[in-house]
């Protein structure tokens, strides 16, 4: 864990130009910038795959449908 933290700290703080080419630093940055579980809370919702499937399930299970229409692609954070 300590080694990982050091790696992340390096990934954040040391300009590449000032270093030798360092693959582990690139790998650390890829890992550090990946979305965290907290940033993916939205994935904790059990989304229906499409509207027709949602409407069918609503009828069968007697639940209302929550429909959100939006521009872009919310699942990618491009919206």
């Amino acid at each position, binding site marked *: 864990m300590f080694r990982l933290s050091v790696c992340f700290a390096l990934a954040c703080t040391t300009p590449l130009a000032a270093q030798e080419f360092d693959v582990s630093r690139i790998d650390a940055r890829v890992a550090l910038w990946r979305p965290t579980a907290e940033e993916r809370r939205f994935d904790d919702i059990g989304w229906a795959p499409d509207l027709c499937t949602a409407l069918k*399930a609503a009828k069968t299970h007697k639940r209302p449908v929550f429909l959100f229409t939006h521009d872009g692609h*919310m699942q990618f954070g491009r919206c």
Partner: protein
Amino acid sequence: MRASSLSNGKVIELLNRYFIPVYLSNEDFTKEGSAPPEERKERQRIYRETLDAKRSAGSVHVYLVTPGGNAFDSMHVAEAYKVEKLVPMLEAAVKQHNPTMGRSLFPATAQSRHPKTASAALVLHLVARNLVKVDGARVPVRTKLGETRSANWGSYPSEDWIVFSKEETKKLLPSERVEKGLTWELDADLTGRLLVHFYPTTENNDVSKNKIQKQQLKAAVISFENGVARAKLTGHLTMEHWFYHKADGNTVDTRLVGYLDFEPASLRVRTLRLITEDATYNRRPFGVAVSSVESP
């Protein structure tokens, strides 16, 4: 809305226990969009029913629909992103329709997923983040999500999935005999298709509007052992990217660094990783990290 109400614990609990949640992208419902006719018909019907009932309706909206399929409530996103507005709306619907409390009917799974591809395609996962300077270092913005005030641009990262076919992937590799020290420039058309996604969270996500002004991505073989070559990647990008959907002169400027592991004999890419260095958009710091991902 994803950063605020749709990341709120109470909202998530209400949706999973009492509702069938579904979201639709308006892009899929344009003339060229991928939505099938039945989906279009139902979406339009719910929209019309809401309008006819003189309720708020629009393209970026929450609609509530009875178990029987009739629209009965709605809210504009400018309200629905607020936790204190959406929770009472959902609670009122629960009171009105008294649905059986239960578990989520559809599994909660990652919504940003590895795309289905032909075998041997190169799949790249891109993450773009807003950064902030702390003690001279650039670190990711970490916003506490799930609150009304969480709803800011860049409060969580953006993602893209870029796919190069097996044939396209070969264009990333050198045509000369591979040995340590070999240098070449990666195919500009192909890398351009990746680099147009190098921008932070903005309202405009139409990459066809992005204008690459300068780009270069060079490779240099630094090792070649056991049939696997590793090339260091370096380059830069300057690209006009509008924040909204009209020209604003905003540009992305960044240096690029990464590496490419490949098998010269089979022309197969094993790993590609590429990150930005000192990237700015409209002079503000952000960062992009790209990594090849194996098929699940």
